[in-house]
């Protein structure tokens, strides 16, 4: 595995990734569902590493999040049925498919998506030796802007959008050079099963590109239940960096690289600073005294040290499972 730390410097003022009103609407729909549909499992086993040793870390809308004592991932023990119904909620789908939702996402994420496509082109070349006319399976993507950027990129030869709320006529690919699994693992109750399914979709010499929020990131471990952008059942699995390594290995993948180029931990903590626990003296002090430059450097330190709350992963199939 390439041991590398990837960090980036944001030059612009960071724009919120979501329109506040639309995001609140999303959360309200989710909360309404969560309150009416409790989970049907009591298991405290970590779905990442299977460890039976975990402890309570925080509650959101009466749903308890557990912290795995072994791989340090955060999870909600969830059942497939309740989750499936959540992901199929008409009201949520309607909101997310609305023109306003998609155009707000385009406005706020355009630069991020362009950067992601460039990075994917670069890493595809690095590991496949080619980055033109590739077969791409995009799994679960729900943003039209992101989908179009990948479809229209020079790396794309054939594009197949699978398991998305967006209906689109695309070719059907059994397997692909590049399988994109972007921000999906967060709502998987059985991530190993899902990754084993993806294993079948990656060509023997292809790659899996996965990104996800991390449970071992600075913002979530600082704010815990006070974090405003993590909520059930949208986020029931927040793997740690180590957890991701374990999970990919168990699912038959060889990890090529894992980096944590997230840029928003400090911003999230700053925004929710009133929710930092009183006993967290250092972070409260840091937030009080640090200027923009120090906070920027601190964020870069998090990125470089594998401690930011966003991971990008590239893996390929091991020769035999």
């Amino acid at each position, binding site marked *: 595995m390439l041991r590398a730390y990837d960090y980036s410097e*944001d030059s612009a003022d960071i724009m919120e990734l979501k329109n506040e009103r639309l995001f609140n609407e999303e959360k309200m729909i989710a909360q309404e569902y969560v309150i009416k549909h409790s989970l049907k499992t009591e298991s405290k086993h970590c779905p990442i590493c299977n460890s039976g040793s975990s402890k309570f870390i925080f509650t959101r809308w009466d749903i308890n999040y557990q912290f795995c004592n072994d791989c340090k991932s955060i999870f909600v023990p969830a059942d497939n049925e309740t989750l499936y119904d959540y992901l199929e909620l008409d009201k949520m789908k309607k909101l997310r498919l609305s023109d306003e939702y998609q155009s707000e996402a385009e406005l706020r994420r355009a630069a991020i998506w362009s950067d992601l496509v460039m990075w994917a*082109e670069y890493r595809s070349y690095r590991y496949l030796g080619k980055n033109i006319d590739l077969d791409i399976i995009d799994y679960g993507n729900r943003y039209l802007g992101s989908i179009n950027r990948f479809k229209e990129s020079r790396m794309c030869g054939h594009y197949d959008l699978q398991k998305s709320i967006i209906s689109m006529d695309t070719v059907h690919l059994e397997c692909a050079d590049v399988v994109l699994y972007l921000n999906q693992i967060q709502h998987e109750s059985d991530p190993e099963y899902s990754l084993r399914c993806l294993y079948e979709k990656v060509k023997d010499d292809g790659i899996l590109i996965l990104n996800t929020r991390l449970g071992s990131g600075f913002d979530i471990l600082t704010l815990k239940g006070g974090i405003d952008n993590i909520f059930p059942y949208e986020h029931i699995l927040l793997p740690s960096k180590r957890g991701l390594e374990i999970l990919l290995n168990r699912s038959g993948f060889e990890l090529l690289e894992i980096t944590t180029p997230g840029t928003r931990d400090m911003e999230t903590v700053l925004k929710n600073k009133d929710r930092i626990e009183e006993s967290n003296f250092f972070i409260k002090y840091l937030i009080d005294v640090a200027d923009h430059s120090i906070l920027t450097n601190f964020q870069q330190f998090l990125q470089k040290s594998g401690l930011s709350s966003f991971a990008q992963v590239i893996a390929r199939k091991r020769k035999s499972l």
Partner: protein
Amino acid sequence: MKRISVVIIGMGRMGKTRYEAMKRHGGYDIIAVCDSNAANLKGYDEKIYEDWQECIDENDADAVIVCTYNVMIPEIVCYSLKKGHAVFSEKPPGRNLQDTLQMKNALDQSDNLILKFGFNHRYHNSVIEAKALLDSKILGDVVCARGVYGKAGSLKFSDEWRNDTSLSGGGIMLDQGIHMLDLMYYFMGKFISIQSSVDQLVWKDMPTEDSAFSILRTEDGRVASLHSSAIQWRHKFNLDLICTEGFISLNGLLTSSMSYGEEKVSYYRKDLEAKDGKLGKPVEHTMCFDTDESWDYEMIEFYKAVAENKSVEQGTIEDAVNLMEMLERIYCC
């Protein structure tokens, strides 16, 4: 795994480095080690020799690894090729172009034997990433480069063999600057127009240069500047590659001395429309590396060439001749 037998001629610092890399690889059987200084042979279980010719003659090895002073390289390489052995040799490929051409001649007369020169910088992670970035065309084509490779000399720098022209053939440019020249050549191709200033700016009591500045130009008009220095005082490695659509910068290099700083490659795409927020400050990405596998990668490639009949990709005789031609012109200017 097919095993290949080797002997190592020269067990100074580089011989030991190659020895360890081959041990890590697992496909090499090191059957003998040789050094004219017996002190360098202590502690090895393999057969030991002080005479390189005896070492080669008495052991029918698949390959000879040459890690000697520059002056010895052509003779040992040519002898080994004539005897039918594959050869891996440390850089530089001799003291001068004439030495290199002598080895090319021996290779041309051999029966498709393998000759590879050690230019390990090509296998550093930052260089591998930069090469992938360039070849992927994401940042367009490289049009110019600036490189600085400098070290601090040492307390007895003038007395080191590297600065004895009869042994080395040149100073800091030939010893260390050749790596930077090789990387520029690797990224941009051969330079046909060269201007340079090769000087003794501080170490005036030795026959070799302590500083070499060069302006190099390729046939299609791309330009590079190179500064090789033994008077940098704090070790420095920096190579900037300016591309039509972006920029790549390699900073620091992981070496055994850990004195060249953290190894990083940074890159950004040009953003004249300021989509990232500010004109002249596009979002920059940096990758940092904490391992140096260059020695291992190099020995893997040599193994594949010998054991699996794969072609030598890096450090070929053509690379060596081109580099020494350019170096000769740097020195002549």
